[in-house]
C-alpha cells in the first residue's frame, strides 16, 4: 500500500514537472535572439546559420538582432530587415507561401506520385497474366501425360 502511494506521488511530481516545463511561456530576449539567428544564413559561410558561425559578419548580424529585439521589434520585422538587404536567400528555411516554397512541395509531390505509380503497377500486375483456356489446359495435361509415359 505504502509503495503504491510513493509511486503515485512520484508520478504526480513527474507530471507536474512536465506540465511546468511544457507550459506556454513568453520567450526571453536571449531565447528570441537564439531563435532568430538560427534561422538566418551567414552570408560569408557555407550553409552555417548566423548563430553557429564564428565569422565577423555573423557577429555583426547577431549584434543587430540583439539591438532590434531590445527595441521591441517582432521576429518577423527583424527577419524582414535582413530579407530586404539579402533577399529570401538569407532565410535558412524558405517560407512555405512563396516561390521558394516549391522546395518543400516538390519532394512531397514526387513521393506521392511515386507511391501512386507503384500502387497502380502492383494492382495492374495480375491482370497482365493471361489465364490458360480449358483447351490449352487439356493440351498441357495431355503433354505431361505423354512425357511421363515416355519416361516410364
Amino acid at each position, binding site marked *: 500500500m505504502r509503495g503504491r502511494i510513493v509511486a503515485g506521488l512520484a508520478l504526480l511530481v513527474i507530471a507536474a514537472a512536465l506540465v511546468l516545463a511544457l507550459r506556454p511561456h513568453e520567450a526571453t530576449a536571449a531565447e528570441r535572439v537564439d531563435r532568430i539567428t538560427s534561422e538566418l544564413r551567414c*552570408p*560569408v559561410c557555407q550553409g552555417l546559420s548566423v548563430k553557429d558561425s564564428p565569422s*565577423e*559578419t555573423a557577429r*555583426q*548580424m547577431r*549584434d*543587430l538582432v540583439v539591438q532590434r529585439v531590445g527595441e521591441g521589434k517582432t521576429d518577423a520585422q527583424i527577419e524582414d530587415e*535582413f*530579407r*530586404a*538587404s*539579402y*533577399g529570401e*536567400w*538569407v532565410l535558412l528555411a524558405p517560407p512555405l507561401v512563396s516561390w521558394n516554397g516549391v522546395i518543400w512541395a516538390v519532394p512531397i509531390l514526387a513521393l506521392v*506520385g511515386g507511391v501512386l*505509380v507503384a500502387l*497502380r*503497377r502492383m494492382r*495492374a500486375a495480375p491482370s497482365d497474366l493471361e489465364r490458360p483456356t480449358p483447351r490449352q489446359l487439356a493440351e498441357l495435361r495431355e503433354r505431361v501425360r505423354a512425357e511421363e509415359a515416355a519416361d516410364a
Partner: protein
Amino acid sequence: MAAKLVRGAIVVAILGLVVTLAFAFRRDPHDIRTGTVGKPAPEVSLDRLDGSGRVALGDLKGKVVVLNFFASWCLPCTEENPALVHVYERYRASDDVVMIGVNYQETRDNGLAYVRRMGMSWVTLADDDGRAALAYGVFGPPETFFIGPDGVIAGRHIGWIDEATLIAGIEAIRPAAAR
C-alpha cells in the same frame, strides 16, 4: 496509359532541370540581384575615416553615387583600385557624380593608412559596426553599388570591377543633361 504518363513526366522533369541549369549558368556572378537592387538606397550616416566629420548618404540625392566597399586586407580591392582612381579623376570636375568608399571590417587606422597609400582622394567612410554593409546586403569586399539621382540602387557589382564597367554603370543612370 500510365507508362506514357510516367515517361512524359520524366521528360518534363529533365527538360525543366536543363532549362533551370541553362538560366542559372548564364547569370553573371558579379550581378546577383539580391534584396537592395531597384530599391531606395539605405540612408546610412557614417564618420569619415580621417575623422573630419560625418556623411549622410541621404544628403546626396540628386547625384549619381558610386558606393564602393573596400578593405586593406582584400586583394581584389587593391587590384581594382587603379580603375577607381581613373574613374574618380574622370568625374572629379563634374558635380553630379560622387564616389564614396566604405571601409569594411577593419580598424580606422588600418583603413586610413590604406587609403593614403593607395591614393584614394575620394570620400572614405568608416563602418565600425558593419551596419552599412548589412543594410546594403554586402557579402564581402569589394562590392560596388550604383545609386541613381533618385536615390534608388540601380546596379550592384560583386567582386573586382574594371574601368569600363564603372563608367558604364555611371553613364547608365547619369541624367542626359549632365553628360
